[in-house]
């Protein structure tokens, strides 16, 4: 959460002489990050990021306290000024306060006081200028004072119209809303309670406030308001967050209170508020000050040994030095037996364990002062066995080197893309809160996404893209199977894509594979290893060939290096045989048959196709002897006979 802090306002809480740029640098190095400095109305305004655990720093006062602790570490003299708000004076008349039915579980503190004769004066220029610098709307003083003091001290307060309260019975019950109960906020927007929101109710049981979040229209200040009840409460942080998130009402008040803003601060808020209403609106105090604070928040002491500091920092910091730093943060510190016993102030609920105290000492000491060095400890050697990142890189290197493009597409897909995956839409995992319609389902196939890339690049006549990414297959009650998959979609001809796949398998030293298909089918499967593990598929549709392979299957079958075969001591005889095959003859099965004919037919490759003529390059080889023409002739005859028998094809030319 970012907060804007005008420099001059900060100086009302901090005695220091410093250039804004220096303050930015030092604060950022040891405390909240000052992201920018704006020049507004002659003032420097710091834009500061305050982390969620530091509600205490989300105010002018909070940042002043941080600066007072940090700047002396950089040799800049700085002191936090004491709060000088006078106590709420005795009332000039005694109007009855509402009867408040407290609930100490839901609310830690209630403070309120009635102010009369509230002159609806315009917001004075000095206050309006500051609010404008903070990018806040300016209304009139009676309304703006509450925003102003919230920003100054970091605890919200709310101005009720006292007469509206009286009219509804002058009763406040702090309770949880029932589901369905209506309420309308002061900006006119109506809601129905979901049940469990902490609300104020009047005598009749109507909701008259959404405390610590936003006021309701039926109790808030309006144009005719003359009497105000100024109230600061401290609703349980979880309850505030619940209601604020449930209804998406993210006010400053809610964001402070859900982060445990300190109820101890509420008294200063009321004192400053009363003072400003008196000064600007001529208001008079018209009731006793009501203060219900049954369990003032105190935090337990945390003990930090000097060893703890060394364990985290690697250097020793004298405990007396650490004590001074922590005291500047308003901790109470006792040094005892090489340890610090640290009692955090009420506004620091984040200081609960020794590591929290280490952080405070370390940041004030200065992270930039710590040396930088690499670990000298043991290097772990237990690596995951089911992944092989270098194999993944090899795949990417190989495919890109031959001219194919790697792409990254989204894991979430549209309804149409999910339906095109080969799985029913209902068999996909679905997001319950998608951001856009085109990213709703967790994909089970990379192919629709990759096909979309081809469609989106119509200028490339031949384009081949690939991606390595997970697909997500739902399981009964467990996480989905998240299968790393190599997807390829290409508009190159089928033989080229298949050839690349085969070359890739060679590159990964996978020699034992088969690609099986039925004659005329548009889908083939890739089987790996002797036990023929299904590793993926090749499919063809509308001029595109798609490949989908489990990377884990490749990892399981890949070798880091080839198996060496000694150079052949006998010669290989190579010749071409051309056959005319009938139309729609599946060539793959013929070639498989030829390869299995005789061990001396060592290789059969399809080297050319011209119309129905198919030229096969045949290698004959026998590792034990050089084959003679007489030995090859019968083999050749067998080959020709096989082709004629299985396909009805005929040899082009004569057998010699």
């Amino acid at each position, binding site marked *: 959460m970012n907060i804007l802090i005008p420099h001059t306002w900060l100086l009302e809480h901090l005695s220091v002489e410093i250039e804004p740029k220096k303050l930015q640098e030092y604060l950022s190095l040891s405390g909240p990050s000052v992201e920018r400095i704006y020049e507004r109305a002659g003032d420097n305004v710091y834009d500061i990021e305050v982390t*969620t655990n530091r509600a205490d720093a989300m105010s002018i006062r909070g940042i002043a306290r941080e600066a007072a602790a940090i700047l002396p570490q950089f040799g800049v003299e700085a002191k936090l000024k004491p709060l000088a708000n006078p106590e709420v004076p005795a009332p000039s008349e005694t109007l009855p306060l509402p009867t408040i039915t407290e609930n100490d579980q839901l609310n830690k503190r209630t403070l309120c006081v009635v102010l009369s004769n509230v002159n609806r004066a315009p917001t004075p220029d000095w206050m309006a200028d500051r609010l404008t610098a903070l990018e806040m709307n300016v209304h009139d003083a009676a309304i703006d004072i509450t925003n102003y003091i919230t920003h100054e001290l970091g605890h919200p307060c709310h101005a009720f119209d006292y007469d509206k309260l009286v009219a509804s019975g002058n009763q406040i019950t702090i309770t949880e809303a029932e589901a369905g109960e209506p309420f309308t906020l002061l900006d006119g927007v109506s809601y129905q309670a979901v049940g469990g929101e902490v609300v104020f109710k009047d005598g009749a049981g109507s909701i008259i406030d959404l405390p610590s979040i936003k006021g309701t229209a039926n109790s808030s200040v309006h144009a005719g308001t003359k009497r105000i009840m100024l109230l600061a409460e401290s609703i349980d942080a979880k309850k505030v967050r619940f209601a604020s998130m449930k209804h998406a009402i993210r006010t400053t008040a809610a964001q402070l209170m859900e982060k445990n803003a300190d109820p101890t601060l509420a008294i200063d808020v009321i004192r400053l508020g009363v003072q400003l209403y008196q000064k600007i609106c001529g208001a008079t105090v018209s009731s006793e000050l009501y203060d219900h604070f049954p369990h003032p928040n105190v935090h337990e002491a945390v003990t930090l040994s000097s060893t703890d500091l060394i364990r985290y920092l690697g250097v020793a910091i004298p405990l007396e030095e650490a004590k001074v730093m922590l005291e500047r943060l308003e901790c109470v510190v006792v040094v005892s037996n090489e340890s610090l016993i640290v009692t955090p102030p009420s506004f620091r609920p984040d200081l609960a364990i020794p590591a929290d105290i280490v952080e405070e000492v370390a940041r004030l000491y200065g*992270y930039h002062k710590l040396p930088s060095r690499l*670990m000298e400890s043991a290097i772990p050697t237990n690596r995951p066995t089911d992944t092989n990142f270098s194999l993944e*890189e090899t795949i990417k290197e190989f*495919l890109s080197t*031959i001219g194919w493009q790697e792409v990254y597409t989204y894991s979430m897909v549209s309804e149409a893309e999910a339906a095109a995956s080969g799985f029913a839409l209902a068999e996909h995992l679905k997001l319950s809160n998608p951001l856009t319609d085109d990213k709703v389902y967790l994909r089970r196939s990379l192919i629709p996404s990759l096909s979309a890339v081809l469609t989106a690049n119509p200028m490339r006549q031949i*384009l081949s*893209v690939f991606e390595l990414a997970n697909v997500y297959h739902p399981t009964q009650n467990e996480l989905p199977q998240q299968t790393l998959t190599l997807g390829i979609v290409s508009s190159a001809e089928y033989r080229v894509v298949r050839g690349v796949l085969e070359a890739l398998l060679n590159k990964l030293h996978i020699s034992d594979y088969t690609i099986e298909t039925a004659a005329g089918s548009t889908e083939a499967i890739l089987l790996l290893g002797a036990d023929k593990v299904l590793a993926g598929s090749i499919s063809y549709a509308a001029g595109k060939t798609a490949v989908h392979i489990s990377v884990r299957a490749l990892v399981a079958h890949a070798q880091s290096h080839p198996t060496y075969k000694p150079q052949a001591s006998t010669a290989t005889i190579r010749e071409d045989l051309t056959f005319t095959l009938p139309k729609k003859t599946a060539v793959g099965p013929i070639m498989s048959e030829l390869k299995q004919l005789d061990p001396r037919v060592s290789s059969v490759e399809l080297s050319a196709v011209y119309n129905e003529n198919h030229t096969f390059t045949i290698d004959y080889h026998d590792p034990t002897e050089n084959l003679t023409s007489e030995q090859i002739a019968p083999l050749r005859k067998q080959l020709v006979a096989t082709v004629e028998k299985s396909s009805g094809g005929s040899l082009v030319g004569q057998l010699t």
Partner: protein
Amino acid sequence: MTGTAYIQQIQQMLLALGADAGLSVPALQQKYLGANGAFTVLAKQIAELDPNDRKAAGRPLNELKNALAAAIAAAGSAESANDWVDLSLPGKKPAVGHIHPISQAMAEITRIFTSIGFTRVRYPEVDWDWYVFESLNMPPDHPARDEWETFFVDRAPDSKKGQMVLTTHTSNGQVREMERLGEPPIRMINIARCYRRQQDVTHTQMFHQFEGLVVDTGITIQHLKGTLDYFAEQFYGPGTKSRIRPFHFQFTEPSFEVDFSCHLCNGTGCKFCKSGWHEVGGCGMVHPNVLRAGGIDPDVYTGFAFGWGVERTYTLKEGLAIDDIRLLYSGDLQFLEQF
């Protein structure tokens, strides 16, 4: 044929080769090495010799082969002396594909961290709330969760591990790595896809992070700083420095934000960096509760962790100020072919 006759044929061919010195390279190749070329035929015939003769013929045949290679090479150099070559012609480029820039960045990040003993791992991208948030000291409804705009999967929650979510960060790998190893030393680098419910020119619903986790005895903030400095210098170039500033994360204590010095202006301040530094991401000393969630005794061990966006880290490199991060996942070839 007898061995003697065969060797005679070799010698005749050697003589013929000498007489053919004026032939061009293609002519020589056709005459001697074509399918029915003189040498091709002769070489095949060696198979038909008596085994003893075959041994004797091997060496002369090899000498003939060498002579033939020399004659072809000589013819080649003679031709190039006479040929007119136009070196001003444009080149014919082979098709060159491209590894996606995010893959390139991930490979570089992997190389840098594995060279200092980190083990790269991969963990689920769809994971239980327990690993993504709760074991990281972020109970349900904690305000710190606001920073992670989380996608939920439409599935019944697990009774122990909570809702099924898309991982908003790679930090789900922290407790998973502790569980995998059982005990320190841990030096993990986890690089993965992450998802957040946001989309504009600087955010995409899907992005990538890399997460480092080191746990052992005696690990201090100094080691975190050393690791950051090492990475900065390796990834951005010599002289790049890192610095850490206070921040807050529920799963680290103390927590820091990391800046790298601008390598364009050497940290003096320029239009790319504003004040000499680039904010890269978060890190911190592993919170004792996170160590406990992973079954590691925080009184014995300490550790640090960091997790940053790959896109952010990569595009800080000189010349990579990509104005619309969504291009990375658009599949636009004009964009991708630049990398």
